[in-house]
């Protein structure tokens, strides 16, 4: 008797002929040289990003992006919601870990010379992904609306304001007005949960597409 998975795959194959699309993506052998820790840092980063997306969605069910509600709702998640402390803790610490794995990933790619043609566009997309990570960190930091988040944002937007000519405009643009207030939380929240994730997923698809088409650079 056929297993339920093979039954399911036959059922899908009969209807949509999915094998032609999926098998080049899924039926790929992992060569021995790739089964080493140094080839895992990109994958670890991706795993952490998936964790961030999942825990982030859970947190968004309770978080209130308002001056009065932000800190309170996070305290509520941490103290009252079942396993809320765990979800918030994972979201918090995984965000730190992503920076670690991303930097290690980038260094290994750099020292292996894997950024060189024909893989230079993979590197470029990776640089934009790194910038996205910083944008995620910067916007997420404010959302707790505690002293640390508030002042970190004041410093960040203050740095932007020092840019010649456009600095003041940029600061007002980032903050949504003078000062770090309600409009700033709204802006950072929308960026953190909608705009940046969409950009992230788009760039990741491009990043992975190029890696799968070209393969990982072989050892010397």
């Amino acid at each position, binding site marked *: 008797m056929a297993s339920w998975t093979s039954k399911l795959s036959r059922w899908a194959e009969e209807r949509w002929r999915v094998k032609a699309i999926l098998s080049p993506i899924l039926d790929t052998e992992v060569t021995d040289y790739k089964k080493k820790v140094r080839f895992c840092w990109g994958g670890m980063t991706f795993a952490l990003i998936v964790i961030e997306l999942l825990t982030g969605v859970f947190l968004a069910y309770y978080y209130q992006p308002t001056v009065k509600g932000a800190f309170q709702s996070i305290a509520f998640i941490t103290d009252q919601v079942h396993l809320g402390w765990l979800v918030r803790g994972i979201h918090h610490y995984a965000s730190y870990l992503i920076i670690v794995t991303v930097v290690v990933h980038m260094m290994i790619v750099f020292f292996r010379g894997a950024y060189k043609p024909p893989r230079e566009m993979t590197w470029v997309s990776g640089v934009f992904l790194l910038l996205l990570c910083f944008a995620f960190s910067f916007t997420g930091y404010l959302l707790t609306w505690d002293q640390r988040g508030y002042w970190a944002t004041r410093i960040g*937007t203050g740095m932007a*304001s*020092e840019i010649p000519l456009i600095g*003041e405009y940029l600061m007002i*643009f980032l903050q*949504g*007005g*003078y*000062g770090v207030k309600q409009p700033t939380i709204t802006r950072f929240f929308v960026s953190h949960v909608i705009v940046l994730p969409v950009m992230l997923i788009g760039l990741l698809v491009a990043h992975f597409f190029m890696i799968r088409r070209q393969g990982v650079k072989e050892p010397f």
Partner: protein
Amino acid sequence: MDEVKAIEKENRAPSVSRRKLLRLITAILGLFGLGAIVSSVVAFLTPPRSALKKVGGWQVVGTLSEFKEAQSLSKVYFGLPILLMKEEAEFRVFSAICPHLGCIIQWDQKKKSFLCPCHDAFFDKHGKVLKGPLKDALLPFEFKVEGETISVKLPEEKLQGYPSWFRITMISGV
């Protein structure tokens, strides 16, 4: 005549077919359209003027009798920390935000000067820099004493020359 025609042919403008011209015009029009969309999005995301609320004007911050116990008073003007100083009959008010990087300054009675603890900056009693990693003096506030009450006002015209984060902080309050 053939020679003339040959020269004419040589000097003819590069041929642009009708199709090419139309394509070019479409591309230019398309760029305008793209510019209209991008500029509209940026304009949408830029906070409107009415959202840029400023603080300012006179605010009562304390009474003269509070000076009986201390020579300096820490007060708040629209969320901004300020320092009120009284030396015999002389009276002065400063923003307590250090124009260097925004730490809160305090009056050091022993050294008779203002001290910013973050980067070891000292200011004299008129707010001028004595020592430290900055050039800007402390921002003096306007003040008036009516009977017992002390009112202060942000001097917007004196903000010129200060770093932009400082100016924006001052006009926005906290």
